[in-house]
């Protein structure tokens, strides 16, 4: 049995790490802005932050083509940005405004951006798994050269569609990379407490899907591992599974103080913040503090601009409430008093 749990030796190129860092920083800046807007009430609905988990999004998506596709979850801002979705359109979506990725009709949990291969976040845990598998099935049927990456959490591996979807991908030998972001929590529950057996990888292997593990807070490690896996999947070797171990530095939603976790442990986890670790590595590779600060500032500035724009933007036209339901049998819009 190959040792799938070893971290690949990575000797990352400085420019590549700068790019990965920039992606992570942009995700962080976006979510910090989203968090503020959520707490101030400008953004409605539930907002799930991936702060602390950015290395997975950045490291995975850096290895994808624009024509490749992903599905994600309720905690998907990072995956969207890393796959190339415009944060401006995303912020408009969070604010429920015209010009949002979904015209303001989906919100944080339903961001989608088909033109960059982002097939949708999902409000139902594990529901994106069969959808990703089906997208890969579709690619195979259409003879299109695409890989589909399916992101989900450690809580999702206890839902039936997880097992069904992996078995399906293996039976039909589909080009899917399953990425389980193991952040320790299923909402306010420690995922360990409700998950039996040796873990996600054993489940994947038992379903015929070769499984790998990576330090999900080490962006270079994720990049290297996925850089190895994607060409194999593209080459027709069937689905693969990757467990990325990380930590959710914030609560389940923007308003969850997460009192249920060991506060000392949680605080200590900030040492493992993937941004902090990448910063250290970049400094080691010779990047100056000023160069790093300029990336940070650029990201913050970008997100300040999109937030201001989202605040100022118009709400969707009311008739959008009845648009894009179905071609026949949908309600007819009538201006109301």
């Amino acid at each position, binding site marked *: 049995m190959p040792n799938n749990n070893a971290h690949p030796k990575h000797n990352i190129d400085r420019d590549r790490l700068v790019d990965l860092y920039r992606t992570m920083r942009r995700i962080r800046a976006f979510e910090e802005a989203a968090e503020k807007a959520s707490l101030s009430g400008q953004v409605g609905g539930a907002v799930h932050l991936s702060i602390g988990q950015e290395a997975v999004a950045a490291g995975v998506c850096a290895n994808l083509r624009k024509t490749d596709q992903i599905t994600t979850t309720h905690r998907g801002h990072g995956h969207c940005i890393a796959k190339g979705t415009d944060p401006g359109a995303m912020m408009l979506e969070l604010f429920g405004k015209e010009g949002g990725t979904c015209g303001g009709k989906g919100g944080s949990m339903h961001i989608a951006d088909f033109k960059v291969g982002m097939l949708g976040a999902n409000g139902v845990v594990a529901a994106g798994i069969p959808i990703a*598998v089906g997208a890969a099935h579709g690619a195979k049927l259409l003879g299109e050269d695409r890989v589909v990456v399916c992101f989900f959490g450690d809580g999702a591996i206890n839902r*039936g569609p997880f097992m069904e979807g992996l078995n399906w991908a293996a039976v039909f030998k589909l080009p899917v990379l399953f990425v389980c972001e193991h952040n320790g929590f299923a909402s306010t529950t420690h995922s360990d407490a409700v998950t039996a057996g040796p873990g996600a990888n054993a489940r994947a292997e038992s379903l015929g899907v070769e499984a790998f593990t990576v330090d999900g807070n080490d962006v270079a490690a994720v990049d290297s591992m996925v850089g190895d896996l994607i060409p194999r999947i593209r080459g027709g070797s069937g689905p693969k599974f990757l467990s990325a171990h990380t930590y959710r530095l914030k609560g389940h939603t923007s308003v969850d103080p997460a009192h249920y976790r060991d506060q000392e442990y949680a605080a200590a986890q900030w040492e493992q913040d993937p941004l902090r670790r990448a910063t250290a590595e970049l400094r080691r590779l010779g990047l100056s503090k000023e160069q790093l600060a300029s990336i940070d500032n650029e990201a913050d500035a970008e997100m300040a601009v999109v937030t201001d724009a989202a605040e100022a933007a118009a709400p969707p036209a009311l008739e959008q409430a009845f648009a*894009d339901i*179905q071609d026949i049998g949908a309600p007819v819009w009538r201006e109301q008093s």
Partner: protein
Amino acid sequence: MSTISYQEAALQAVAEEMRRDRRVWALGEDLGRGGVFGQYGGLLEEFGPERIADTPISEATIMGASVGAALVGTRPIVEMRFADFALCAVDEMVNQAAKARFMFGGQARVPMVIRQPSGMWRSSAAQHSQSLEAWYAHIPGLIVVAPYTPADNKGLLKTAIRCDDPVIYIEHKDNWALQGEVPDDADYLVPLGAARLARTGDDLTLVTWSKMVGVAEQAAELAAEQGIGIEVIDLRTLWPWDQEMVFASVAKTKRLMVVHEAVQAGGFGAEIAATVAEHMAHVLTAPICRMGAPRAPISYAKPLEDLLRITPEQIVATAARQTGV
């Protein structure tokens, strides 16, 4: 025109559409052996295992993978085997397939046909006999079709396959062997949302669908002998339903009866009855009347199962009361 069965008509529809459009494929359990009712017989031989895909017993993923495959441009025909098993895939049908287009702001479409063989059939008992069309009619984003004649099963299935929105396609298990004249034309399409006037009559409008159309026609025949003219409307599509035809008929007959095999309480007959009550109360000369099943699970024992079946005689008796004949 050829005289073929309801099952053969569906088979023809699928084969023709698969020939016409390479993106169309079918998936479900046992399809390679023709499907559980033979309604995929021979398709594997023509189209191969990629397009007539045998799946694991994984209803949630049959449905969910179809949503994904539809989102990226294929056109899956999803076989659920028995409508009852679709209950293992409701999140995928209702939270995903029905909502993706809207929720994503119109970026993508979900062209899929979800075949759900329905209804009571040879002592199949409580978990293999349900008629749940009312559920799907209640869900924004879904189209609901329930053909009765073999010709409609060809024309509507073809239209459903060409439709860009998800269609719940309800075939009645007791109808597979029903024979009828079916156009041979590979472009024979029946529009969604249009009812079929199965029989004209002056005294009472009877709206129904699926297998009950045949029962209603028999009832109309019997009633005619008693001098009661029943106009039978085969709704064919439940959502959107053909209000225009129903209203026009009720305007003429001034009486409405709705008949369906499904449980009456919360059945789709309630929607039709309520809509007519709201809009046509002024023309009605008799109270609206619904006939559906009692709110009871379906029994295995034949005499108990039969008790839940609506008969032509019951319809005639009710029609006689309603028309005062």
